[in-house]
């Protein structure tokens, strides 16, 4: 007589499809009269689903058979799904990189071709008017009067685009000339969080590797700076003090930044500060944050 442990063994292997045909028949005949084995097969079938689904849920993208994407698009079109043809649909990795490169190139060209960002230092907001910038370097005495009701404007000194930091101050609702494409704006706005301004210099920042960041497959909808704002402020003050009248050096923090999950539906992202709801989905610890000091020029 066969021990029941043997059927337990067969039940486990049945769900994972590892039985031989004689074993399958044997277990089937047994399970017709054994409730315990029927339940065991059911449990193992669930276990099968647990293992496969949990692995698929946590695992990142892998490779597909060659041409599967194109075959899918062709089939979808054939069945009436309004997609573009396989040859042109979507953007491959190369297309994506090219598009990103072109965007960055256009942006860089726009920066070089003319000034387009204006900083109002005396009211604590960046203003993005359409007024052209007259980048005349003022006398030191003028600079020292900077905060006395005079409007001062920032002249970018490095590869940096300054734009409106507070959308509410942009009365026109239009993007300023030379602004970055939307997907890059997001990063930039985040990194302006530590911005400080003075009559002479404005502290601004930008990720050092925007291209790499924005080529991530998923646009992070939330991003948290790993550097405490107080540390940014203190370090900036120190750098300015050390620099005397010369241009302060770049301020670089080795710490990286964190992408977190989106806020619950209906909640403004800025209000969702609950750490339990913001598990980090990506941390770029090795990517430094680079802060620029932009000289203010009085008009």
């Amino acid at each position, binding site marked *: 007589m066969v021990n029941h442990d043997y059927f337990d063994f067969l039940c486990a292997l049945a*769900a994972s499809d590892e039985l031989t045909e004689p074993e399958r028949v044997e277990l089937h005949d047994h399970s017709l009269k054994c409730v315990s084995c029927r339940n065991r097969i059911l449990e193992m079938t669930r276990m099968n689903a647990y293992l496969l689904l949990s692995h698929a849920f*946590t695992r990142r993208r892998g490779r597909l058979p060659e041409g*599967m994407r194109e075959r899918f698009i062709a089939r979808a079109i054939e069945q009436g799904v309004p997609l573009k043809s396989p040859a042109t649909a979507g953007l491959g990795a190369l297309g994506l990189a090219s598009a990103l490169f072109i965007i960055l190139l256009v942006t860089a060209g726009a920066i070089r071709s003319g000034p387009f960002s204006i900083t109002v230092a005396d009211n604590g907001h960046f203003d993005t008017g359409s007024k052209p910038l007259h980048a005349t370097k003022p006398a030191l005495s003028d600079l020292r009067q900077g905060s006395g009701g005079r409007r001062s404007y920032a002249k970018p000194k490095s590869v940096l685009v300054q734009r409106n930091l507070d959308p509410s101050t942009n009365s026109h609702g239009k993007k300023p000339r030379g602004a970055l494409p939307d997907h890059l704006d997001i990063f930039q706005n985040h990194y302006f969080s530590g911005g400080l301004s003075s009559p002479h210099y404005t502290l601004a920042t930008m990720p050092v590797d925007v291209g790499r960041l924005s080529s991530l497959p998923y646009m992070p909808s939330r991003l948290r700076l790993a550097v405490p704002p107080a540390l940014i402020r203190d370090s900036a003050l120190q750098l300015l003090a050390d620099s005397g009248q010369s241009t302060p050096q770049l301020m670089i923090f080795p710490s990286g930044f964190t992408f977190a999950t989106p806020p619950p539906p209906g909640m403004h992202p800025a209000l969702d500060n609950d750490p339990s709801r913001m598990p980090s989905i990506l941390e770029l610890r090795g990517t430094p944050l680079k802060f620029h000091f932009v000289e203010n020029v009085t008009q």
Partner: protein
Amino acid sequence: MSSRIARLVFSAVTPRAADFPDACVSDAATEVTPAGLSPLGLLRQRFLTDEALARVLQGGNAEALTVLFERHASSLFRVARRILRNEAEAEDAVQQIFLDVFRSIQQFDPEKGGFKAWLLLFAYQRISNCRRSLTANRFFDSDPFDELLPAVFPLTERSLGYSLPEMSLLVEQVMSTLRPRQRRTIELIYYEGLTAEEVSKRTGETVRVVRHNLYRGLEKLRKAFWGNVSSALKGESR
């Protein structure tokens, strides 16, 4: 003479950001707008979350389907290949699943959970149905346990007893308690889609040992899980 730094008056330039220094955000990332067919539109779609893409798809923009396919087809393909044991059938099943997703996308409700969990459960059920269909067409020799499977379906997070994130965490924790050989065998069979014979060739163990390791590992997993969900299972079995 006072130093220059003493004259500097610093002020935060972003009052809102200063209020929430650790949670700087933008709505633009989750904003759902018809992306159209322009290269920039397609580029923007690639940066949307799954849930936002699903909303775009619900809004009638079919191009979002291609992005979702590119993101998730490989995961589904692995599951399908494991269940169907055939690459061509697996590819066919995955393609059909995404076409079904296009037609059934209105069923997705982001309030009830993430898109990936919804997609996986949606797909698992269809792949299992595909297997049954192939069995009925005698692609497989026989599957006498098929009559037991309806008790498992419809497959939902509720019927499984856990949400997918919870389940993933639990599986990972329990797997870490297995003996290395048992764990490796399960990983090779379930995650890489090998058969016991193929595992035997790769590891140098006999098929009998591989099957025994598989049984021991699965049995430990079963005991770990069913300690928690046995009541739910009994309730459904009645």
